[in-house]
Structures are given as C-alpha cells and as structure tokens.
C-alpha cells in the first residue's frame, strides 16, 4: 500500500433482497485529508459506510487498512473500532446522563477498578488539546449538541482512530457551531487523521474538503480533487446528467398564464418552521403547477410541511385566496382547501391496518366532523369510484392497505386527498419507489387536475419529472430558497446551476 493511504476499499458489492445496493464501489482515503462522500438518496453512501464499519457484511470486494498485511475482514462495529475506524453520527450515541469523562472512557477500561482521578485528568488533557469547551466532570446533557459531537469525536481520536467517519454531523448545528466543528476537523487533519465527511450541504463541502467521491445508484461515479470539480459539475454528477448532453425536455405543460387580476390561491410571506428552514415567500395561482427542487435535505419537504402546518410554524403570514388565515395544524390547512401527500408514505401516509376504504375516506371524514360519519354504503361507493378512477389494484376495498404494493398504496393516499376536493394539492415525492407506468399515470393526472383549475405543488427527486409537469420551479439550497425559474429557464442546465449556486 502506498505510504499516505490509510484506507482502500476495492470492488465492494452488497446485495439486499431484490436490490443491488453497491456494485463494485472503490473508495480511497489518504492520511490527513477530509474526503466528502456525496450522493443523492439511494446512492449507497450509508451502505458503503455500514460495510466499512462492520454493520453489514459484503458479498464481494476487499478492504485494506494501513498497518495490516493484506485485506482485512471487519465483522462488527467493535472490530472496526479496534482497527481504528470510528463513526460519529448526527444523533449523539453517547450517554447523556453520564459525565464527559465517563463518556470518554466508557467501555474502554479493561480492569474492574476505575481510577476516577486519572480518568478526569486524562479527559482534561484531551479536551484542552482539542480546544473543546467542556469540563470532565460536567454532565454530557448540559453541553450543547455541537460540543457533544466534539466530545464524541475526541473519544474517537483518543482511541487512536485513523479513519474518522462523520455522518451528517452538521444537520442540527448553527453556523457558529459548524465553524467550531470545522476548526476541530482541520486540526485533526493536520494530525494525520483521515476523515470521511458525509453531508448534503454543498457549501460545507467546498469549505473544508480536499477530495470528493461521488456515488449514484450504488455505483461509483468518480473521485475528484475539490479544485477540479466546480459545483455545477458536482450537482450534475450526483443527479446523473452530463452537462454536455443535456437534452431539452419538452414538457406537456403549457406556459402558465395567470388570469387578469386573479388572487393567488395560496400566498405565504416569511414562512418558517421549527424544522430549520430559512423564512421564505411563496405563492401559487389557480390552475398552476409548480415545484420545489433542490438536493436531498435542501428543505423542499420542510417548505411544504410548513405550508400544510405539519411542522410547528414559527413565523410568517399566510393568505388563502387573498384572505389572511392562520394555519398552525393540518386541520387548519385542510379546512382551507389544502391537501398534502407526504413524502414518507409508510410513516405519515397510510394507516396500515385499516382497509383501503377507510384509508380513502379518512381525511374527508375528519373534515366532515365527528358526528357525521359516512354510512357504509356511501363509503363503499366512494371507495369503488376511486379504485376505478385511479386503477388501484387491490383484492377488495376491505383489504388492509398495508398488504398493497407501494404504488397502489400511494394511489390510495392520492385518492384520499382527491376526495377532499382540494383547491391546492401538494404532492411530496408521489412517484418515489413506484413503477414507471404508475409514475406516468400520476404525472398525467397532475396535469389534468391543473387544467381543471386545481393548483398543484409537485416535488420529486427526478428533475425530468419536474420539468415535464411544472411551469415554475422554486429552487432550494441548504434550507434556503435561492431562486425561481420559469419559461425559458426551465431546463436542466439552468436548474442545476441554480441548485449549485452559480457556475462556480
């Protein structure tokens, strides 16, 4: 192995039932570098990390580690730790009710007798050397999340780690805390630690990283020096569109023409929620289809959740058809004719054990009120109607929704919201994980609904789909609204360069 390389993964394959999660991925980490691992949802980043840390086994491939002859096998996370591979996750995995020093040494002392004094002085030394503002005897809980993360990192460093994996460490930190964390990372880099940095904040990658490895669909796209890869290139590589062959996708959608003097169906000013998005302005007109685009974690879903009142709204004012309203919980939005198909179908969408029929009528039933249940005959009629309309494949309307396929579950949730006859329909990733045929059906349906006067906000990870359906795209980056594209600007190149933040 070359001198400056600490970790080499070669030709890694990992298969889950029905999915080839990793297909021949290579990854190389050098001493004293911060290496970003980038990729969209489902690219295989976390699988690769989990193979490296021994959480998953691998079907094929080899891992070489500095100081070990030949390939190593890592059976468990404990194994990985012993070999000098440590991971710090976004959620702190330490014990909040123990002291800083105890957390530093927990599970690491061999004997049964603990020298508390030595433990505390050792911890003091480490904290000082890394410039971490915490006392050894302080309870971990009483430190800020950023400091807790630093302590987790310090623990890893003290265990002689050669490879430090930081999995989305900055998601819950504010700017100053991020700056402190970066200082610590640079400090470690100068000590020769190899750091793998998983994040979806582009700015942060360009601020601290030396090298980038991009993955897509379980395959390696490439390894690049940071200075050789402009942002727009990085985005195009993550999304899988080469800039040279960007064909212009001509959508079926008409250029949207606003009626003279019409008030927007929905208008928001300075809207923000506790999910951490920067305040944003937004509006949608009658019969318009628009979309939120951006990379994973850019705040697309958080925006629409704030509109629907699904997250706790912290600021901003909202107008529906020109009238000021207060939307603080989903029912408020529903009463104002807004419907929301959530991103996480399983967690937020289906009510698993209930029948297809009950799942279809649920939202409208809640709107109708506690004392006005649908009769069985009415419910059956509605269920039959929508099963036919959306071509839902189910054994019967009494079948529990959880036994349907993903695509059909999605159609049931769609039916639920269509049945509320909304004026403004929000679809968050309605086509994720469903077959191509259903995808096209849903796109067509969106355009049809819009032509009938419904306003639709459409979110998808697939840019093609958005360009095909939306007449206006709102671009998000790092939880901020950074642009709005219409007309001629609705092409892959412009969208990507806006996502990346200019042609830098």
């Amino acid at each position: 192995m070359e001198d400056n390389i600490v970790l080499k993964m070669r030709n890694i394959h990992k298969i889950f039932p029905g999915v080839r999660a990793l297909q021949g991925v290579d990854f190389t980490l050098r001493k004293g570098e911060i290496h970003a691992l980038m990729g969209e949802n489902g690219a295989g980043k976390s699988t690769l990390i989990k193979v490296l840390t021994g959480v998953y086994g691998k079907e094929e491939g080899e891992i070489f580690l500095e100081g070990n002859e030949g390939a190593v096998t890592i059976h468990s996370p404990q194994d990985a730790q012993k070999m000098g591979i440590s991971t710090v996750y976004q959620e702190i995995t330490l014990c909040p009710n123990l002291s800083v020093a105890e957390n530093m040494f927990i599970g690491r002392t061999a004997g049964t007798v603990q020298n508390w004094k030595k433990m505390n002085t050792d911890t003091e030394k480490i904290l000082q050397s890394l410039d971490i503002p915490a006392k050894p005897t302080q309870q971990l809980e009483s430190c800020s999340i950023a400091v807790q993360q630093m302590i987790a990192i310090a623990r890893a460093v003290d265990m002689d780690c050669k490879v430090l994996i930081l999995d989305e460490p900055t998601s819950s930190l504010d700017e100053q805390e991020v700056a402190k964390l970066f200082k610590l990372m640079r400090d470690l880099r100068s000590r020769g630690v190899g750091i793998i940095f998983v994040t979806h904040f582009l700015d942060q990658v360009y601020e601290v990283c030396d090298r980038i490895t991009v993955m897509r669909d379980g395959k390696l796209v490439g390894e690049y020096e940071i200075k050789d890869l402009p942002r727009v290139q990085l985005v195009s590589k993550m999304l899988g569109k080469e800039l040279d062959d960007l064909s212009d996708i001509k959508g079926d959608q008409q250029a949207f023409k606003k009626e003279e003097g019409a008030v927007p169906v929905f208008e928001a000013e300075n809207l923000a929620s506790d999910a951490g998005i920067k305040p944003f302005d937004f509006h949608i007109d009658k019969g318009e289809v628009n979309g939120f685009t951006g990379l994973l974690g850019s705040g697309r879903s958080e925006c629409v959740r704030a509109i629907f009142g699904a997250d706790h709204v912290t600021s901003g004012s909202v107008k529906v058809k020109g009238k000021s309203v207060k939307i603080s919980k989903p029912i408020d939005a529903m009463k104002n004719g807004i419907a929301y198909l959530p991103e996480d179908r399983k967690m937020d969408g289906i009510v698993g054990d209930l029948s297809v029929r009950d799942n279809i009528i649920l939202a409208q039933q809640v709107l109708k009120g506690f004392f006005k249940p649908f009769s069985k005959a009415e419910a059956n009629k509605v269920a039959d109607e929508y099963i036919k309309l959306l071509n839902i494949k189910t054994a019967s309307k009494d079948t529990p929704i959880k036994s349907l396929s993903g695509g059909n579950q999605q159609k049931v949730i769609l039916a639920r919201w269509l049945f509320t006859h909304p004026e403004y329909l929000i679809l968050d990733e309605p086509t994720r994980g469903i077959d191509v045929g259903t995808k096209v059906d849903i796109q067509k349906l969106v355009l049809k609904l819009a032509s009938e006067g419904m306003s639709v906000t459409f979110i998808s990870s697939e840019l093609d789909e958005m360009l095909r359906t939306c007449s206006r795209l709102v671009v998000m980056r790092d939880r901020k609204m950074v642009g709005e594209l219409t007309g001629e600007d609705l092409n892959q190149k412009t969208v990507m360069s806006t996502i990346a933040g200019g042609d830098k």
Partner: protein
Amino acid sequence: MGKGETVKANNTNFLMKLVRNQCFIPLAALLLLVVINLVADPGFFKISLGYNAAGNPVLSGFLITILDSGSELAILAIGMTLVTAASGGQDISVGAAVAIAGSVLLRVLCGENSRPETLQAPIIVAFLVSCVVAMLFGAFNGVLVAYFKIQPMIATLILFTAGRSIAAWINNNELPVISDPSFKYYGEFIPGIPIPTPVFIAAICIIIIGIVLKVTNLRIYTQAVGINQSSSRLNGLNPALIKVLAFVILGLCVAVVGLIKVSRISSINYSVIAKDIEMDAILAVALGGNALSGGKFNMTASIIGAYVIQFLTTTLYKFQVQSDALPAYKAVVVIVLVVVSAPTVREYFSSLTKKLKLSKEVA
C-alpha cells in the same frame, strides 16, 4: 355441480368466515364452558323463580348470577377496549377509580352524617357528581398518557396506588351506610321485576356504545390514532385529544360500575370494592382477540370476552374452588386462550383447514 355440493361449499365458506371472525375465540370458549357444565351437572342451567326477603319475585340460578355479576366487567370492557385501541396500553387504575366513584356517590347521598335516616340528595344528582369526578380522573390519566407521553400502565399506576386512599379520604375514612331501600334497586332488583337491575344497566351501556359507534366517528378516529399517530395527525386529527377522550369514556364506565357496586351492599369497603377488576377487564379485551398494542378493535368480542370470564369464575365457584385458588385456575385458562388466539397459531390453523379442503377436493 349438483345442488347438494353448492350447499356444502357454502357451508365450508361459512365455516371459514366463522373461524376468521374475531368473535370466534370468545364464543368457542363460551361453548366449551357450557359443554363442560352440561356434562358435569346440567343443574347448572336451571333457573328458578323465588321470592326475596322483601317478598318480590326474583329469578335465581347460575346463569342469572353470571349475567348479573358479569355486568360490571362488561361495562368496563367497553372503556378498556377504547383505551387499549387509542393508546396502545391499558388502564390499571379502574378498580381504584371505581372505589373513588362509589365513595363520591355515597358522600353526596349521606352529606355530613355517615348513617343518614333519609337521602341528603337525589340519587341521580349523586350519580352525576360521581360521573364528573370519575371522568376527571380519567382525563387525568389521559393527559398523562397523551400529553406527557407516559406509558399508560405507568401513568395509571399513580391512581392505582393512590385511588383507594383517596376513596377513604372522601368519606373521612368512615363507612357510610344507606338505609333507604330505593338505593338497592340499582344493584339488586326493582320490585316486581325478577331480573337483576345490573343486567339492564349493562344492556343499556352496550346499546349506547353501539349507537355511539354508529353515529359518530369514534371507531375510525380511535383506530387511526392507535395504528399510526403521525399519519392521523396529517389527516387533521388531534391524536392527544382522542386518547384523552378514550380515557374519559372509560371514566364514565367506571362511574356506572361504581353505582352498581355500592348499591349492591348499600355501603362500601374501600380495600375490597372492585378489587382486581382491572385485570379481568384487560383480559376481556385480550380474550376478544384485540391487540393489546392498540389499533383495530372489535367491541362485541370484548364484551363477549367479559361474560366468558364471569362464566369461568362462576363455574369455578360452582366446583367449589376456594376463592384464593381461583386466580391460578384462571391463569391456566388465560394461557390456553391467549395461545389459541395468537395470530401465529390462528394462521397455522387456517392453513391447516385450507390443506384439509384441498385434500378433500383431490379425493
């Protein structure tokens, strides 16, 4: 195909449906108990008309005993089913809450004096006061569970521990005795009617919950919250409120049971009244094939389950099992029933019947 075969096919279909029905297990258990009693002593089913001390005609016999003393359990099973479905946990404080409700009722009826010559307030007023108190305690449990996110069993442990002392404290630790004979009507007999009144009260409660489930969305709301809280919120529901509502309804059931219990003896024994009834109520829900982790529920099955438990208790008394030994016998039955109604076992049996059907067709 001949006409006979169609009938046969329909029959097997009907059987399959029956076995899959959630009421099948409690009904089968009931049938088993009936058969055992028939074999042991057909006299078990004898009902005779006699006269009580007041000279009124009354029916007596083991079946009447079962219907009579099963009333409290059936009423509590209604509330417990809703609490289980909405919160995915159980309320273990109902016995203690019955003591409180009963104590409040007596306190209002007696006023300052614990042995009044006449009632100090109309019974209906006293009952309504005890309803309000029991519902407040229910709401207390519900708020702990829904807003403070405490495990239902832990949250209700508070009242389970404190309830009986609170009940004693309400009456200054005295034992009030009601001498007015009309108070006895609710727990014993109304003059001229030979069937015990609790049977009617239970029937009324069952009818009311039947109507409520029909004319309101209680069923679908409770189930949705129990199955997927996050998605029910996104459908405009307020999961916390619905959980509290379930506990408040259970509180109302508790107040009704409190009335029956204190009326039976025209007094109260704080440490014995409705003792261990919470466990039987939970058992009724489980016996009805309802998942104790919440979600979908079948009210009828729970209520049948309650009467099955009473049937079992009465049968054991009939066989002169000591009351101390009763729980051990019950436990054996519980093990059998719970295992039989476990989803894995049911799936096994349904696949077995399918195989049998197939082999028959081949033959």
